[in-house]
């Protein structure tokens, strides 16, 4: 299972490519070929275990949900 923050994009504000490339929506930038293996859970990698960016993004999401719960809002 690929990381939910993995996207494939051909451009951002700095780069434009002929082909779509792996892009981390949590970091807001393209990722290297080696990191893309983690994003895609290739070989024995797991994004949940091996990617600090994913974990921090999930923590932020959880904190936002907790804060919303505290004021009775939904973050759906």
């Amino acid at each position: 299972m690929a990381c939910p923050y993995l996207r494939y994009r051909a451009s951002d504000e700095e780069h434009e490519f002929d082909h779509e490339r792996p892009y981390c929506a949590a970091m807001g930038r393209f990722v290297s070929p080696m990191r893309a293996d983690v994003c895609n859970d290739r070989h024995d990698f797991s994004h949940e275990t091996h990617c600090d960016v994913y974990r921090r993004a999930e923590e932020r999401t959880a904190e936002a949900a907790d804060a919303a719960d505290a004021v009775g809002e939904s973050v759906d």
Partner: protein
Amino acid sequence: MGYGDYLDGEKLIVTVATTGGVHGKDANPNLPEQPEEIAADVRACEELGAAIVHVHGRDEHGENDASRLQQVDDAIRDRCDDIIIQNTTGGQGPLEERIEGIRTDPPPEMASLDLGPFKRDRHIITEHTRRSIDALALEMRDRGIKPELEVFNGGQLNEVFRLIDEGLLDPPYYVNLIFGGRAFTIPRPRNVINMVENLPAESAFNVLATGPHQVPLTTLGILLGGHVRVGLEDNLYYDDGRLAASNAELVERTVEIADRLGREIATPQEARTILGI
């Protein structure tokens, strides 16, 4: 090999590592990834004096893909005259994937053989056990493929001695000494000299140094009678703050340095003779 070989006029083998498995075009847009793009770069480097090309395969997204090695090799053979193809068997994939580097048709004349793991990022450690090293070494010998022995740090030089002791290598042994930040041997001139002094007999060596260490330490390697590898895989910059315009630009500089130091450049055929291919 050593300073005496420099004085004796041993010719210099230049390897170009055009692509690698670490960086993408977002790091340097001039890094070639697709087969035809790589082959065009290799042709330019061959014309400047590169005798060996170290090859990685990438998929259409720029991600590592060993199954693309065949297409890259075919494109290089179409475009180039005589350059020696050296496929990678490195990287972070399992042995079943990495062994693709020695199963292209025809097989490459050379292939890299990583002699141990190294770290990348926070959680990536490439897996190179003695079992996989031996399997690759044996198959390379069976297929007549010359291994380039990748020594990422000092301790891995012991693996060269082990492979020799266990009869898995044929001389001359071609040892690639790798220097650079974080994962590799600490990039200092004294460490280059120390590693060279610890090589087994009947060795030829190559110096690979990453980033800003590429020029000074490969220059030292030239003076010590060794050979050199340059290219965007190892160094994305021409100098401080300026991205390299091409692999050819890096090869051209190395050839100029060698010329000033009095080392003649080996043709691919002369490289075959030096390496016993």
